[in-house]
């Protein structure tokens, strides 16, 4: 009935794209075929440019966890 804890824990990374026209960095959920330093044809939400370069693919970490870790030993 409820999703198991394992099903909830699949890590979904974000793809960070840099517009080749205005250098703005945007992110979106990872899509199969994305790879770091690859170029994709996608529209920049800021300037409308249609070429973007992937500058990073990683899982965003919640800041709270970081703070909690610092409080311990």
């Amino acid at each position: 009935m409820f999703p198991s804890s394992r099903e909830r824990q699949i890590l979904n990374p974000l793809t960070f794209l840099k517009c080749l026209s205005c250098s703005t960095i945007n992110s979106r959920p990872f899509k199969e075929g994305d790879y770091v330093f690859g170029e994709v044809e996608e529209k920049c939400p800021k300037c409308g440019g249609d070429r973007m370069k992937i500058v990073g693919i990683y899982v965003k970490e919640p800041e709270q966890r970081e703070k909690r870790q610092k409080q311990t030993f």
Partner: protein
Amino acid sequence: MGFSGGGAEVFARMQIAGQGDLLTSLLQLIWLLFLMLFILYPNFSQRLQLSYILKDLERKLYGLKRIREEVRSRTIETLRRYSEGNMDLERELDQILLSFAITPESMDPYGIVYKLEHIVNTWEDTFEESVKRLCPRADRERMKTLTNLVEVARGIDYLYRVVRHYYLLGKKTSNIYIVLQIQMLMPQLMEIAEAYRQACYAFMQGQPVGDGVGVLAAAKLVEGLEKRTYEVAKDTIVHELVMDGRRLFVLRAAGPGGAVGKPADGIIKIIENEGERVKAIVMIDAALKLEGEDTGKVVEGIGAAIGGIGVDKFKIEEIAKKYNIPLYAFVIYESIGEAITPMRESIAKAAEEVVERVKNIIRSKVEEGASVIIAGIGNTVGIGLS
């Protein structure tokens, strides 16, 4: 309510129930029987403990089996996308999962590294060939990532079979010490199993994993710079460029398919070509952190920063000693789980920090006009050429 019959007298005489009621008498009788059980059957407590441990192990083994089945079905599903329709993938995959490599005899250890290298190379080639046969429609990059995916499936399959072996062996022989050892290891083993599960999804889609941070740092070091790129060893490329008056040879595995390349062979080839001009080797790799340490922490040290079975490490140390070249190392801390699962933000950010620190070490340790080798070690899945 007190006893008035003969039973109460018997109890009173035996000093068992005293003047208590029926419930007390019964409880005391049960307690006495329980005590007798322990005295007459000394292994009873151990048997009891064994059954508890076996129950606990059984529950965890089911969990492990579920993960193994999940990884196996996802692997088959992915392989099917690149295979021909008439192939019995399940049977073929099972054959690959059960395949093995026999390590060389170590009674006489002389030359064992090169024997081991030969066996591992043959094993890797055979493994790749098997996956290629299953997925003829996959391109070269995809093939490498699929090989990694099958390796993940093989890893979790082996883990499950080993745990099952100890569980069944312990149960069959009623040996508490066998099951106790595997029970103590189970938390770590379950963590590794969960990492395999996550890794399966990462390799299915070609996402960068934590282990690729060394490669990512090497790629970022040369990003946007004028360079000459060529293959130096199997699945291994080198970017040759000039930075601050020093000649840099930035070596890494070729991506974006999942590969680790042959960094030692690449380094040897560069040193043999450049000779005495190489004044330093800087290696960047992910390293296992201790509990309590922060993921993505960058630490500097000395030596060959490379994992694996030791062949590459041995060869790099050997050539560095021969030419008297210092080995500098940068490692990025992460857990075993983080190394094979999608890259975390802190690890990705650490790559940028490493780039700056590598530049600093080159400026301080290598004089202008000299050459330096920078080797980014790790799996290149999801990391293309910069």
